[in-house]
């Protein structure tokens, strides 16, 4: 376990509500997590669990209204981001905090060459002489594995394949040597072999550039490939956290267990897949207590009363389910 003073990003009790017609949607409803320096942390969850909204809140990119940060604290390297003004956030974004989104085509400007767009990301923070900017742009393209970077500077986004576009996005995120990159489903739109290339690239870059990665995904396979630690989100809260080994081999929350059981794999041929009954609750109409209780196999009357506390398994493994926790500790005491 790294020492706690090595924490780069900490999010405490973050609450983001969306106001529209009817009751407010509690998209993020008390989220706590932290990321150490040089650590890859995956935030995993299904659509609507609040994982992207959390990332946008960190980056200060939520449109307010309709969003409203209803509570919590976000600290990046000691600086409170929720108290920072727009100028301070702008200085941080792209410089110390890089970002990569899912659809590179819609994040890249179609009428500027990729060289210009990467250069813009550099110049926005570091006013360097033109030759130096060009040199750094070529270096960045080389770092992200674009062949013949000098020849590609003048290319436009439409001339690149999906994987290469995502490489360009990563180059832009790395433009100013960030301490952390937030990547929101960067490989979801890509083919598996291209996804493998991008994941390998991110793993190598993280090591070479000494940066932390917050990787948001719905794909448990990707989590296994890239994460040091994992947070599982459901309906706006973190339900489980731990190392990949904890999550995949000793899952302590029924939701995590159900997700793993629902994955179709070769070993499950001939067996029926576990399917979680019902569907994810609407963020404006969440059930009282544990938000997973209407779909859970282990539900007890207490689950409907109040949101369960995080139960502490050793080694940084926490899960928000006292039922499983008691069951496991009882079994441990017996043996």
């Amino acid at each position, binding site marked *: 376990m790294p020492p706690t003073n090595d924490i780069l990003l900490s999010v405490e009790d973050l609450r983001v509500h969306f106001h529209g017609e009817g009751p407010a949607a509690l998209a993020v409803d008390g989220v706590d997590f932290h990321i150490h320096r040089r650590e890859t942390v995956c935030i995993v969850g299904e659509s609507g669990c609040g994982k992207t909204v959390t990332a946008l809140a960190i980056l200060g990119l939520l449109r307010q209204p309709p969003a409203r940060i209803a509570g919590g604290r976000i600290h990046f390297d000691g600086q409170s981001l929720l108290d920072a003004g727009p100028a301070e956030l702008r200085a941080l974004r792209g410089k110390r905090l890089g970002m990569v989104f899912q659809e590179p085509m819609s994040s890249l400007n179609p009428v500027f060459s990729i060289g210009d767009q990467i250069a813009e990301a550099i110049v926005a923070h570091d006013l360097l002489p033109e030759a130096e900017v060009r040199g750094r742009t070529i270096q960045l393209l080389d770092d992200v594995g674009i062949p013949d970077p000098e020849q590609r500077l003048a290319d436009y986004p439409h001339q690149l394949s999906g994987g290469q576009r995502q490489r360009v996005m990563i180059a832009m995120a790395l433009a100013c040597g960030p301490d952390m990159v937030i990547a929101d489903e960067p490989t979801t739109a890509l*083919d*598996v072999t291209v996804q*493998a290339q991008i994941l390998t690239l991110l793993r190598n870059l993280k090591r070479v550039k000494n940066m932390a990665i917050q990787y948001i995904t719905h794909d448990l396979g*990707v989590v296994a490939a890239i994460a040091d630690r994992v947070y599982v989100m459901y309906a706006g809260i973190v339900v489980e956290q731990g190392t990949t080994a904890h999550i995949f081999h000793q899952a302590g929350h029924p939701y995590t267990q*159900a997700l793993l059981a629902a994955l179709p*794999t070769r070993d499950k041929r001939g067996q029926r897949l576990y*399917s979680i009954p019902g*569907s994810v609750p609407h963020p404006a109409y969440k059930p009282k207590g544990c938000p997973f209780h209407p779909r859970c196999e282990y539900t007890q009357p207490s689950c409907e009363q109040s949101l369960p506390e995080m139960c502490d398994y050793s080694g940084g493994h926490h899960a928000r389910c006292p039922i499983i926790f008691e069951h496991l500790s009882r079994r441990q005491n017996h043996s």
Partner: protein
Amino acid sequence: MSDTLTPILKVQGLKKYFPIRKGFLQRVTAYVRAVDGVDLTVAPHQTLGLVGESGCGKSTVARLILRLTEPDGGSIQFKGQEISRLREGRFKSMRKQIQMIFQDPYSSLNPRMTVAQSVAEGVRIAGIRVKSDQQRRIRDLLEMVGLPAASADRYPHEFSGGQRQRVGIARALSVAPRLILCDEPISALDVSIQAQIINLLKDLQQELGLSYLFISHDLNVVSYICDHVCVMYRGQIVESAPAADLFESPRHPYTLSLLAAVPDIGKTAWSPQPPNESLQVSPAPQCPFGGQCPDSIPECQGEPQEMVQVGVGHYVRCRRQTLR
């Protein structure tokens, strides 16, 4: 030949070349060999997986079978009858027996029609004329796909992604098909919902004796659901094998790299060696995998390679297999 042995679908040498036009006169300068001599066999009550990456031609194969796109060559036999050259009128009655489920159920459902109206179209086409019989059939179909009876009068936007896919399945079933072409039916769905739809497809297969052509890029899903798998690359089938064989002893270098690229929660040391990216424009006549292949040998440059049998029902399109 007995009925159980006649394949429900037999595709041979299927071809579709899309012209690339250039210049003011839009002259055809080259062809994209989207589907370049594809052979497939779907056995009755079985699921054939067709896997490959985007642009490999797998969806085009499905469109060609249904003749949503006209093929440029090859034969398509449905229950032993050639259907690729039937006139539109004759083919219409055939098409009832082959249905399709699409990736995005939202864009394939009419937003102005209630679920009952969408499904009713198929029920009428299936020849049920009496109103009350139609109503009963719609109710049965919705029940079959696990939708509450009350959903009949609701519109597509009122449903979640998984429920919409159920509507798409109900509509496909409304004409009582024998074969369903499933084109990435669960790719757009969340993990917990994927399992529900996969279970539903398996249940329906058993209850109704359906056959599936299951098109997907997700090898985990394919390894779970399919009986036999064909791997497609740049318009050609490069490997075809019973699912267990394909995943346990893959033979084609492309299949190997594809399998290595799949992140797997069981794999701790995941180190893929994926092929290079490049565009699909008129590949050379030799091996389509050529330039990207880690194992290529001078002999790969020769004539196009035929499929070579390497096991029971296991075929590979690779020159190296002939030299063993």
